[in-house]
């Protein structure tokens, strides 16, 4: 399996632990489905933990952006946690680093939701 996503609740924040590759095909569609399901279930605070993401392509980056837009448009917040160097570099190249709210600690990320 290219990607593994597990969702857990920390207070009222849904933390999605993403492991593996977010690339065109199974990886990006699994991420899309997970975010849409959370939004459909009324979740407003979503934290994507990308610490175990080994690879991401332009499709995966597009999925992060689409997820951000979906959550924001539903009145919620989507934040990113534990970026690997590769993901961080890609977000900087694509000028998305300042678009996302990015945290390095889960505790502070969870507290930062309003």
């Amino acid at each position: 399996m290219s990607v593994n996503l597990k969702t857990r609740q920390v207070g009222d924040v849904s933390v999605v632990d993403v492991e593996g590759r977010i690339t065109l095909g199974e990886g990006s569609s699994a991420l899309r489905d997970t975010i849409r399901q959370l939004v459909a279930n009324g979740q407003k605070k979503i934290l994507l933990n990308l610490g175990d993401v080994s690879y991401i392509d332009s499709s995966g980056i597009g999925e992060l952006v689409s997820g951000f837009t979906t959550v924001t448009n539903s009145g919620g917040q989507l934040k990113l946690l534990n970026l690997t160097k590769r993901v961080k570099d890609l977000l900087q190249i694509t000028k998305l680093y300042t678009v996302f709210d990015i945290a390095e600690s889960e505790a502070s990320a969870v507290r930062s939701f309003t």
Partner: protein
Amino acid sequence: MEQYLDSTLDSVDKAEELVLGVAERAGFGEEELMKIGMAVRESMVNAVAHGNRYNRNKKVRFRVQRNGTKLTVRITDEGEGFDFGNLPDPVAPENLLRGSGRGIFLIRSFMDEVQLRQLDPGGTEITLTKYVTSQ
């Protein structure tokens, strides 16, 4: 090296694997290998998904050549082509939140030279070049 690959996502993995083998032997470092691999993946996705539209009757021609410090990858599809002279800038503020359109931008960011060519009667060819520099 030259191969004709099926229009499937498995071919994207295969092309990346093939180019990384050649690039590693050419002396590229880890960071450069990542960039080459990703540029080839993005180019292959364009060929397989957008060019050939996963059509099982269409192939992707994949060529890798090493000449001294120069690595050249050429990927050719049999699709209908696209207007690559008029691509939206994905880092322009008005495009930042688009869900797609970053592939060619990343390819150009990661390679030393990139050429796109529309073929007659059909198909698109992308040529990627990267030079080994002392690490």
